[in-house]
């Protein structure tokens, strides 16, 4: 071990924090220091351990932004850890209507044996059609053995034959339901054109809502931060960057982009106006439309206003978007005359009528005619998981399978609240009717539903109607505080595991996620918890769940499924801590839709016509008034052009967090560097701040008909007038937990968002269609209690 004690002490703030948390006795100076590799959504790292405590963390390989990795020390030793199993008091006492006390009362510590028996009793009592697997596809960590979504699904499918799941996801619910029929691929998780092709060919790079630098910090797999190196090349290239966004993003600043501060939720109007202009000036690519698309003739009457009397001209769009007509024309001219890549994002489709957004970009890109050319066309995942990195194309480790779920009932992600409050209701959904199930039991592992679900006040009312709410997590998250039974889970640093193939797109690394330290309390690994529950169901279920193997045997089995295992033994991999695949040279030449462009007959898209569906008959046949057969501008229920602005004049956006992964890392020291008086910041334009008498650093109340919350004001020109932004993910905390609809005291924006769906088609979430008002908080307020433990009654 070459690293010295002195070097650690000279290291990071994190190291100081960790040392402060340990008892630095004199003997420690002579204790050996172990260097142990692992990986996380924030990147791969080595933990340095002395006397059973983590004293420092350093990234594996190059990482210019290691703060989130360093925060793992604080996270692991957080006071918010769940130490023992607990049961909510009145639930334990089986008092009538005790569900109404969720989130309001104390927890009683119980033994693991008692907790397991209680969980299994409730699961046995509840029909599988009434069990909601609330773990959904959460992002707890990238380890394959303890991966909560898979374990939860596997467990329910084995012991109950299934459970109710959500349909779609919270990130891209609208796009997932439209892109397949429009372009024959879901696109949002698909391999992107390689950075090398963009750097060599792209002249105009449009970031339509995409904040590449910010959101690529993290990954669904283990983040590799390689995009940071590419972004330096981007910045130094001759590419012109355009940022169409109400916010001047971190990436826009880095690339010195021209910013078009459009009104939120009006992007489709701007796209249509560009298309209208390109058509009327005959500048669009007619041959591309003819050869590669289907249904342009059915779209044209709408575009030109022959169908509805409203030509979608730049002048029309100016009134909606507040982007000058001259700028719309200028941009259309620029895009069509240069190799242009339009990098869309996901948050625009998390809005009312969000189905239209990516379809709009695809249709516009079709008229520009560069789809499938190197560095041209559209891209919907350049901001995610290292999008743009060339792929190794190798197989990663295996993992548990969930098996078949025999429950037919599903809940579209936006309809969770409605399901809990109005079971049995029938809704439209992608051309069919869907009956919402009657949920009695909800089980959440490694996810923070009282955070990622829109309209938290409505959600809490729904949660209080459940018979049973079980939460399994390492931390007392807001969801854990609402639970009846709380099961403490270990963190990734307290157990052995093996990572997903990482990063999500490069797929060139597998990491040994080694146990770094022991859990000092009674927390158990997620895998062990489900194994215990399966055992309580019966020996048959236990054997099926565990396959009769130990964790290390599973890890080895998973590794053996990878291509790496053909040449590198498991022992060698485990000792080294990672393996790396070479990226083939050919992968750097990858161009999305390149084959289709070269030969659309030989490589047709998997759409109805084999071409891009500018018009989709299937969608038209749904017969919905809020979702048509071609891209359409629909006025959102809440936007800056609506009458509601008289009451709520500001549009609230809740973009991804800069220093969190959703709710992860809200409970660490990094949060202290950006929170305002312990609350999440709200970005507000200086003109708005002046209008409402708000100064930088003030605590302000933001409110609408759905709720109220306190945040800290950050007055900045980085956001356009009329728009405010609170980053998603901070831990929800009510000012007074004892009353309903209490003012949010931490700044969790889903107190204000709506559970309104995108449309009757995708029924996806709409977190970015929100109007609010704002005022300065006067007088004293109670501290934010988000990271305080609930009252615990120890045995």
């Amino acid at each position, binding site marked *: 071990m070459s690293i010295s004690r002195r070097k650690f002490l000279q290291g990071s703030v994190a190291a100081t924090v960790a040392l402060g948390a340990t008892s630095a006795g004199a003997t420690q100076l002579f204790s050996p220091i172990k260097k142990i590799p692992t990986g996380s959504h924030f990147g791969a790292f080595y933990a340095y351990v002395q006397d059973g405590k983590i004293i420092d963390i350093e990234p594996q390989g190059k990482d210019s932004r290691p703060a989130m990795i360093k925060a793992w020390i604080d996270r692991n030793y957080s006071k918010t850890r769940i130490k023992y199993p607990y049961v909510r008091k009145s639930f334990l006492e089986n008092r009538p209507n005790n569900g109404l006390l969720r989130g309001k009362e104390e927890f009683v510590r119980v033994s693991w044996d008692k907790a397991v028996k209680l969980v299994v009793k409730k699961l046995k009592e509840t029909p599988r059609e009434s069990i909601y697997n609330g773990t959904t596809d959460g992002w707890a960590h990238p380890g394959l053995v303890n991966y909560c*979504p898979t374990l939860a699904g596997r467990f329910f499918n084995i012991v109950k034959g299934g459970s109710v799941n959500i349909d779609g996801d919270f990130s891209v619910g609208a796009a997932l339901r439209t892109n397949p029929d429009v372009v024959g691929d*879901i696109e949002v998780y698909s391999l992107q054109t390689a950075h090398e092709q963009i750097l060599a060919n792209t002249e105009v790079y449009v970031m339509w809502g995409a904040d590449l630098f910010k959101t690529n910090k993290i990954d669904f797999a283990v983040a590799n931060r390689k995009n940071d190196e590419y972004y330096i090349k981007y910045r130094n290239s001759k590419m012109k960057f355009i940022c169409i966004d109400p916010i001047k993003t971190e990436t826009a600043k880095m690339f010195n982009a021209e910013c078009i501060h459009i009104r939120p939720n009006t992007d489709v109007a701007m796209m249509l106006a560009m298309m209208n202009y390109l058509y009327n000036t005959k500048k669009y690519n007619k041959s591309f439309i003819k050869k590669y698309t289907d249904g342009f003739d059915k779209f044209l009457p709408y575009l030109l206003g022959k169908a509805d009397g409203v030509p979608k001209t730049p002048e029309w769009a100016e009134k909606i978007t507040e982007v000058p007509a001259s700028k719309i024309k200028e941009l259309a001219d620029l895009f069509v005359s240069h190799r242009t890549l339009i990098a869309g994002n996901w948050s625009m489709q998390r809005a009312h009528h969000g189905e239209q957004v990516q379809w709009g970009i695809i249709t516009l890109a079709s008229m520009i005619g560069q789809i499938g050319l190197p560095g041209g066309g559209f891209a919907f995942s350049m901001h995610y998981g290292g999008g743009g990195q060339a792929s190794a194309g190798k*197989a990663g480790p295996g*993992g548990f*399978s969930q098996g078949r*779920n025999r429950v037919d009932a599903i809940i579209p992600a936006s309809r969770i609240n409605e399901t809990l409050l109005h079971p049995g209701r029938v809704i439209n959904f992608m051309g069919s009717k869907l009956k919402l199930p009657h949920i009695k039991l909800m089980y959440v592992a490694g996810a923070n539903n009282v955070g990622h679900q829109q309209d938290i006040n409505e959600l809490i009312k729904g949660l209080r109607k459940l018979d049973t709410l079980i939460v399994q997590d390492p931390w007392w998250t807001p969801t854990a505080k609402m639970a009846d039974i709380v099961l403490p889970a270990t963190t990734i640093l307290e157990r052995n595991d093996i990572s997903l193939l990482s990063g999500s797109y490069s797929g060139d690394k597998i990491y040994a996620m080694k146990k770094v330290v022991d859990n000092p309390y009674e927390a158990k690994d997620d895998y062990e918890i489900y194994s215990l529950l399966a055992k309580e169901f019966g020996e048959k279920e236990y054997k099926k769940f565990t396959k009769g193997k130990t964790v290390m045997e599973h890890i080895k089995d998973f590794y053996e499924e990878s291509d790496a295992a053909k040449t590198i033994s498991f022992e060698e991999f485990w000792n080294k801590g990672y393996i790396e695949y070479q990226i083939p040279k050919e992968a750097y030449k990858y161009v999305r839709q390149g084959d289709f462009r070269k030969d659309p007959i030989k490589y047709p898209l998997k759409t*109805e016509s084999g071409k891009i569906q500018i018009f989709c008959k299937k969608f038209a046949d749904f017969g919905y008034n809020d979702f048509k057969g071609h891209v359409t501008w629909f006025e959102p229920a809440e936007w800056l052009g609506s009458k509601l602005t008289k009451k709520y004049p500001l549009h609230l956006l809740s973009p991804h967090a800069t220093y969190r992964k959703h709710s992860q890392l809200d409970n660490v020291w990094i949060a202290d560097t950006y929170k305002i008086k312990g609350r999440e910041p709200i970005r507000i334009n200086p003109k708005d701040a002046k209008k409402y008498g708000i100064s930088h650093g003030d605590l302000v109340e933001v409110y609408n008909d759905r709720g109220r919350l306190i945040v800290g004001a950050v007055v900045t020109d980085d956001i356009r007038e009329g728009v405010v932004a609170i980053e998603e993910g901070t831990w929800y905390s009510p000012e007074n937990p004892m009353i309903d609809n209490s003012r949010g005291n931490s700044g969790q924006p889903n107190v204000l968002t709506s559970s309104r769906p995108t449309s009757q088609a995708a029924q996806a979430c709409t977190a970015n269609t929100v109007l609010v008002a704002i005022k300065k908080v006067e007088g004293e307020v109670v501290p934010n209690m988000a990271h305080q433990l609930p009252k615990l009654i120890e045995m």
Partner: protein
Amino acid sequence: MKNIKIFFIVALFVSFGWSSSFVYIEKGIKLPLPDEGVVVYSGTPVKIISKDKNRVKVRIAGYIGKKDKKSLYATKNRKLLFATVKKSALIHKIDKDRGELKILLPAKNITNDQDEAWESGSDLFYDKCTKCHHAKIVKNHTMAEWNVLFNSMKYKAKTNKMQSAEILRFLRAFSKDGILRESD
């Protein structure tokens, strides 16, 4: 709506004279029968005409390929293959769209158990496609939708060509516009 779908599937079986027997192939999706000049596909529903210890004479009915008249498909969309023949004369027309084929199959390649006939594709799907997320309900999506969903995600599942073919065949057969429903 549910009743209509079940009626549709029952109607398919009645109109084609399928019984509850299926082609079973232990490995892969194709069963070449060189003597017959026929290739039959796994899971294809058949009507047993006669049988002895080693062989079973079956009738396979389906939609004749639009361009190539040497293929029989499960449904009008011609996405799920039942059989291909060397000579189109082997397929006898039932009407302008549909045809039938009578062939001898090894007895070991016939099963009355639907689950057994489709086990390989089903197992592969629920194994390979549920490691990162839960499986979508197969009958909630059409054959065309499954074609997109599976092909979008298969590079993450890292399935080989044969596994992909088996999974897609299973998904098509049990899809919204497919011919079968998964057993409870």
